[in-house]
């Protein structure tokens, strides 16, 4: 069964999670993701799921930890300051290898910041955010449709790798309304023989834990995690590209910014400039290999972000500084117009032409 509905991004995440078999949601209100929480409050009881408003983000992520440890498909959502509070719990989930989905609908920071859209939690999302050597799979949608699709994928990947998955959106995506096609998928039932849900017929107790007091054991556990992360890097890089084949300049942008950048690229192409767009969909694992290939055939990159420049570091690393990487960003909840990005594109391409002359 498939159905097209006009939905807010936040609501699309909620409905997609339910389709993906999520029956447990724990959260705490914070703008601009609250509609997701409210959606779950309404929907979960209708399908005999559990919605619980926790006393804090800290409690919410720990409820997720408990529910995931007991073998359930479970989700929490928040926005930037709330994700900071969840950092400890996320590290524990990563350490204990618990599959769970964490939604971050980013807003401006640091501190209390603002309630406007931003992308300034990129480092926090992709580099860890909590303590220890761990990685979350981080997926960045750029439409309401993708908020739904990537939510479903998040649950699949979480279970497949026994790893937390973060869906990283921003206030604009969370709040905007677009048509979304929600396709009912048959649920693949997940065997979780490791879950702590009561011994039952088992003879050996299951323990959900991230403590290894012996350094040899903790190192072995970390090696196991790193091997898993390598596997994820090999198998789960996702991206989208537009008109990169003969591009002299490739704009790199994710999430809402990629849509603004796409209009800028189209404007530039209409003016005869050879420009393309590269959009990472998985921010971790970052599609580095593909970017490296592109670095060999293009002249320069322009990274556009709603931050002071965070993903630019991954682009530089991926392209090994083979070509110049320029940056354009707005902060604090300010959204660039496509004209702004177009102007930057124009400037760089013409400068390059000058340099060649």
């Amino acid at each position, binding site marked *: 069964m498939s159905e097209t509905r006009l939905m807010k991004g936040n609501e699309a995440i909620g409905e997609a999670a339910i389709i993906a078999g999520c029956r447990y949601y724990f959260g705490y209100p914070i703008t601009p993701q609250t509609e997701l929480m409210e959606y779950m409050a309404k929907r979960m009881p209708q399908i005999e799921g559990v919605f619980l408003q926790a006393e804090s983000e800290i409690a919410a992520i720990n*409820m997720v930890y408990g529910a995931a440890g*007991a*073998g359930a498909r479970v989700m929490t959502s928040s926005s930037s300051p709330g994700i900071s509070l969840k950092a400890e719990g996320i590290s524990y989930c990563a350490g204990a290898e618990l599959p769970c989905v964490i939604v971050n609908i980013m807003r401006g920071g640091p501190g209390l910041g603002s309630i406007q859209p931003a992308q300034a939690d990129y480092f926090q999302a992709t580099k860890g955010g909590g303590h220890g050597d761990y990685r979350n799979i981080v997926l960045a949608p750029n439409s309401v449709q993708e908020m739904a699709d990537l939510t479903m994928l998040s649950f699949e990947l979480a279970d497949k790798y026994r790893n937390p998955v973060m869906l990283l959106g921003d206030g604009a995506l969370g709040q905007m309304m677009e048509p979304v096609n929600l396709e009912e998928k048959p649920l693949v039932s997940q065997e979780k023989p490791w879950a702590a849900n009561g011994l039952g017929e088992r003879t050996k107790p299951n323990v959900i834990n991230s403590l290894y007091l012996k350094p040899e054991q903790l190192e072995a556990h970390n090696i196991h995690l790193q091997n898993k992360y390598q596997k994820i890097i090999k198998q789960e890089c996702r991206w989208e590209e537009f008109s990169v084949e003969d591009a002299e300049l490739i704009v790199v942008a994710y999430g809402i910014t990629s849509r603004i950048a796409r209009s800028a690229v189209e404007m530039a192409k209409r003016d005869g400039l050879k420009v393309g767009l590269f959009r990472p969909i998985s921010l971790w694992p970052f599609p580095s290999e593909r970017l490296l290939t592109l670095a060999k055939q293009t002249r320069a990159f322009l990274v556009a972000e709603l931050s002071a420049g965070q993903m630019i570091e991954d682009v530089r690393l991926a392209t090994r500084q083979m070509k110049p990487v320029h940056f354009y960003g707005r902060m604090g909840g300010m959204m660039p117009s496509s004209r702004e990005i177009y102007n930057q594109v124009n400037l760089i391409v013409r400068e390059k032409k000058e340099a060649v002359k």
Partner: protein
Amino acid sequence: MNSKLYARPESLTDAPFHYCPGCQHGIVHRIIAEVIDELGVRKQTIGVAPVGCSVLAYDYFNFDIVQASHGRAPAVATGVKRVCPDSTVFTYQGDGDLASIGCAEVVHAAARGERITTIFINNAIYGMTGGQMAPTTLVDQVTTTSPYGRNVNQVGTPLCISEMLSTIKGARFIARVAVNNPSNMAKAKAAIKKAFQLQNNGEGFCLVEVLSTCPTNWGMTPVEAVKWLETNMIPQYPLGVFKDAGGE
């Protein structure tokens, strides 16, 4: 004819406890294990271990365990219980864990009437980290972070968790016990058993506070520690049932 009169509970593994000599964590573990055996719920029990000296509880209990971060056991147990409503879910927490960093989590688990049981070990000190002041540290008690004795003007008075939680409607059963002598051990076991039974009957939040010794960080012999508990802790933290909703 030989018959075994006294055996290790099935709910305990045969791993030897790592606790210091005279520490009462071991006694409380044993009581919990006996209770779970007697109730016949070992195969449906899920324990939540805290951060503190009892962090390794999963090595000792012979059933499923989820290890929680510092103070968050009641939230973790909430997640577990919501997924496994027919299971017996309990948290085991020290006073640093429950009364300090995890104060909000336990209060709200009680307020929700969460169908879990909390065993709260009050030894008036942070054990594992080497004897710092806890919210439950007694007035004038010397610890490594109250080297001149707990000064009420600066750090306030000891937190009476059982009294506090018994004011919360959602709490079903709140009792304070000690394991300083055989008769109190029997009472402790009865209270813990009741706390589990009520949970299994589908009733709300139950907490049993157990006054406990920490000879190592109190700087005493095990015998002195029991005496200190009797003369100093019990007057501050009187034993008894503070709340038995329905049975009052």
